[in-house]
């Protein structure tokens, strides 16, 4: 019983620590693309957390909307921004 509680506590600490770490990385890492990938992983871990907290409905919504769709939207915006920047660079060279 004791070990189970300790294992649970360890799991909680690990999960919450990695959530904070991922959030920190998302907001401070240099590359924008990296930040988006970190954010998607953050969303996935967050949905694990919802599962741990017993909110399975939220976990499901988070994994599809929070991580998947938001990630897809962010990535496609990133591609668009890159395309715009490339075009501008070409125009500048000419």
């Amino acid at each position, binding site marked *: 019983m004791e070990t189970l509680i300790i294992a*649970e*506590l360890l799991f*909680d*600490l690990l999960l*919450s620590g990695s*959530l*904070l770490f991922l*959030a*920190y990385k*998302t*907001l*401070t890492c240099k590359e*924008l693309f990296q*930040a*988006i990938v970190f*954010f998607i992983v*953050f*969303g996935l871990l*967050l949905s694990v*957390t*919802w599962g741990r*907290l*017993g*909110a399975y*409905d*939220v976990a499901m*919504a*988070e994994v599809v*909307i*929070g991580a998947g*769709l*938001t990630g897809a*939207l*962010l990535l496609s*915006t*990133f591609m*668009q*921004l890159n395309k*715009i*920047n490339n075009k*501008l660079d070409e125009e500048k060279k000419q």
Partner: protein
Amino acid sequence: MSTLFVYAIVGIGLFSIGLYALIMQKHLLRKLLAINIMGSGVFLLFVSLSMRSVTGVLTDPVPSAMVITGIVVAISATALALGLMIKIARKSAKAELCNLDQE
């Protein structure tokens, strides 16, 4: 004291980190990520506190429902912001908030 308070504190931590990045970061996409992380922090606090001294099965469904509402609102706002951002990048060549007041 329940270990579940840990998640509530993490929620506030996410909110604070997000707030810091929202103020300090320049790039709009980064600001948007910061807002999303702040939102996740609030949601985490909302759900984790409803687990206090409840015996497993009987979790409080009201915060869960509110958080689902919040997640849908968050993705709507994110999508609108991204649309705006692309438009701004088209018009002004970079997706940063430039200081238009100090002309």
